[in-house]
């Protein structure tokens, strides 16, 4: 009998995507692309936060010196492998999620992680999350590099 595949659910913080645009952050680009293509992982992000990321594309281009079409093409490619979760899917967890974050603006990521628990939040703001409490709800908080190490 074939063994059932264990799919890991990863919640992607937008700060990882922004960091991958910094020239010196090659390790982030390696980790991010592997995680996005790993057949044993499903990657999710709150749709509203991704929408804001796209709304800031012009500003990102201005600061980074990119052309808008190139940035948009890159984002489109990366988001092919990301399931964008609408607010309606994690709205009921949003209030509870406030207990698990030190900065309420990170609540959408925690809410989505609680909804899809067991799950892992992939972020560079580990300090913003109350990891101990989240672990009790089967949610891990890891950097992209640490998440990759765990997959090995």
């Amino acid at each position, binding site marked *: 009998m074939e063994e059932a595949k264990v799919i890991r659910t990863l919640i992607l913080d*937008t*700060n990882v995507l*922004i*960091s*991958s*645009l*910094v*020239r*010196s*952050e*090659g390790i982030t*680009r*390696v980790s*991010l*692309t*592997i995680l*996005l*293509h*790993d*057949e*044993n992982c499903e990657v999710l992000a*709150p749709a*509203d*936060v991704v*929408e*804001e*990321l796209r*709304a*800031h594309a012009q*500003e*990102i281009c201005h*600061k*980074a*010196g*990119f052309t808008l079409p*190139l*940035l948009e*093409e*890159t984002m489109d*490619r*990366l988001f092919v492998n990301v399931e964008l979760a609408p*607010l309606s899917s994690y*709205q009921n967890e*949003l*209030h509870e*999620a*406030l207990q698990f974050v030190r*900065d*309420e*603006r*990170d*609540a*959408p990521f925690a809410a989505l992680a609680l909804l899809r628990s067991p799950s892992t939040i992939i972020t560079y*703001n580990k300090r913003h999350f109350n990891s101990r409490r989240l672990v009790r709800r089967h949610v891990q908080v890891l950097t992209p590099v640490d998440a*990759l190490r765990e*997959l*090995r």
Partner: protein
Amino acid sequence: MVTETVPVEIPAEILQLAERSGISREKISALLRDFAVLEILASSSKLTKKDAEKLSREIRVSAWKRLRSYAH
């Protein structure tokens, strides 16, 4: 149409890690293409870590303005 060839160095570890992480050989080409596109974009980037942190904060603040009423 003007085309330009940009060399992209694929770290050896990306292939090893990809294989160890359970990515099939067929999917590796898609992974490498995405990595190359991201690498080409970042190779000309003037974005600093500080800029990236500031932008991430701004994005979260804007998103939260829309979402906060659903949390309270």
